[in-house]
């Protein structure tokens, strides 16, 4: 991997982290409309996976995959606009947070009902196959969402259709307050792969290079007509389900253990080891991203709320 690529990964990891942190500040300022769902600690999955994609590929993010959106070219300001419910947001304030999409960019925004992204992105993938396009669809689910019927129906459908679908299982230990052990009896989410004739794959989701390589291989396989894959990425949700949640249900030690595995700190070590960047350089990058983000947040803050009457219209073509 080239140094440029490594730095690109680093920049996106940082962008994801700093963006979330800045959103948290915005939330504390009372400027976020509704809830805020952070991806802190899980950035390597979003960034590492989305970076494997090419033009024409699609993603179906969940609420914590802001990193994937940023990698796929979404303007951070659009996400801020969504959280601030401004007229200028991709949904014109009609929906919030990451609930937006853009077919031209290959982004299928989620709905809240867990599991439903899987059949929809399976359909996208089938469409690619039917059209003979060498593209893939990448879709995400949490551990908790895997208990939904739609997960099963969508996975089976994709498998039967041999659709180019890569499914990222983000095992972050919890579904809201419920630990994975009380959501399922398998010791690994990958134990669900053979139910669809797929290989069991589990990786360290806090190691961005492992994510990149593993997802990259699955994407390549799908692109070549090899059908779907499921990849379990072990990680941890370092903040509450949403900002209002103090995650009192998470044992302190568990959190500390995972803090030590922080995907960004770990990747900084890689950069230093490989002499791609030193600490000072890392700091410079951080500062420049922070700077840009401040400008983005300030700029969106001046943008208008929608006019009430724009509630109407747009239900039908």
């Amino acid at each position, binding site marked *: 991997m080239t140094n440029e690529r490594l730095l690109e990964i680093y920049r996106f990891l940082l962008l994801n982290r700093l963006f979330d942190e800045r959103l948290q500040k915005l939330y504390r300022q009372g400027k976020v409309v509704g809830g805020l769902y952070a991806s802190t600690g899980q950035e390597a999955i979003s960034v590492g996976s989305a970076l494997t994609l090419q033009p024409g590929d699609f993603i179906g993010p969940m609420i914590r995959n802001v990193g994937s959106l940023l990698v796929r070219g979404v303007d951070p300001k659009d996400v801020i606009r969504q959280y601030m419910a401004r007229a200028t947001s991709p949904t014109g304030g*009609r929906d919030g947070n990451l609930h937006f*999409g853009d077919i031209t960019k290959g982004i299928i*925004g989620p*709905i809240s009902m867990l599991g*439903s992204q899987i*059949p*929809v992105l399976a*359909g996208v993938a089938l469409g690619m196959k039917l059209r003979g396009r060498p593209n893939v669809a990448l879709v995400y689910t949490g551990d908790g969402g895997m208990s939904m019927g739609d997960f099963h129906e969508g996975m089976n*459908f994709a498998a039967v259709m041999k659709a180019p679908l890569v499914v990222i299982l983000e095992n972050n230990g919890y579904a809201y307050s419920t630990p994975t052990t009380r959501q399922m009896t398998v010791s690994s989410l990958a134990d669900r792969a053979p139910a669809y004739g797929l290989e069991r794959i589990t990786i360290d989701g806090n190691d961005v290079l492992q994510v990149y390589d593993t997802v990259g291989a699955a994407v390549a396989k799908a692109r070549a007509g090899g059908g779907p894959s499921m990849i379990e990425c072990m990680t941890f949700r370092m903040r509450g389900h949403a900002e209002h949640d103090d995650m009192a249900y998470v044992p302190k030690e568990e959190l500390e253990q995972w803090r030590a595995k922080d995907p960004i700190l770990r990747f900084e070590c890689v950069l230093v080891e490989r002499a791609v960047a030193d600490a000072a350089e890392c700091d410079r990058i951080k500062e420049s991203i922070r700077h840009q983000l401040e400008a983005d947040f300030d700029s969106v803050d001046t943008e208008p709320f929608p006019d009430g009457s724009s509630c109407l219209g747009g239900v039908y*073509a």
Partner: protein
Amino acid sequence: MPEITYLEAIRQGIWEELDRDSNVVMLGEDIGGYGGAFRVSSGMIDHFGTGRIIETPICESGFTGAAIGLSFMGYRPIVEMQFIDFISCAFSMITNFAAKLRYRWGASVPIVVRGPSGAGVRGGPFHSQSVEMFFAHTPGLKIVVPATAADAKGLIKASIRDPDPVIYLEHKYLYRRIKENVPPGDWTVPIGKAAVRRTGRDLSVITYGAMVHVALEAAGLLEKEDISMEVLDLRTLLPLDRESILATVRHTNKVFVLHEDTRTCGIAGEIAAIINEEAFEDLDGPVLRVTAPDTPVPYSPPLEEFFLPKVSDVVAVARKLVAY
């Protein structure tokens, strides 16, 4: 031009659209070699291939979701429910994903969800339901309910070409019971337009689906009593054709609604509300209704016959309203 059945009209309509537009695909159970439970897709897989006629596992929510995904890739998917009752299993996918997409972020979901609906063939509680009211309350959807072979063809074609999700409810009682000459060539029946099936002077019945035929039969009987009943076939339930509803009210000043669907919170209520709001002064009597009772659709012949609105029920209410 030979007469064709309602079923054949649907089949022709789908076939022609598959032929016309390579983006049209169909998904459903047993729709390949078997041709579907009612043979609506008979012969299609041989002609159009497995890339267009996509036989699926049994997963209504899954394949409806996949149809939404296919529509993002430029397809216009037709989703067959083997019986329309199974649409309940895709309820969230339809009302939450498909229906709200355009409003939320402007994406088009030109899917058609269709299947055999309605009672009268001893299907029992799970193969006879009228599902229209499950969906009529969800902005973003359209619901069509053809009553004739020509409409069945014209509306399926219009539904396939429509840029929004359409629920197309074909009445299985009519499948092989009605036959008609259907005009040749490429034409559609516009969604959202009702049709006056019979003009009348004294009162109007507003209805749809299989009940259109019951209404027409009743109108024939009433004529012998010198009661002239107008029959309005809604053809689309969402959006309702308010103009046609109001026009018939203004014409006869007495209306009732007839539907096979159960009574409480059936479409009759919405029609009563619209008439109250917009044509109250034109009413010379209450908006009444003739409907099935509030029970599941029963199985045994005497029960199902009791359940379904009959010509005699229609005649009785018409007489009552005329006398009002």
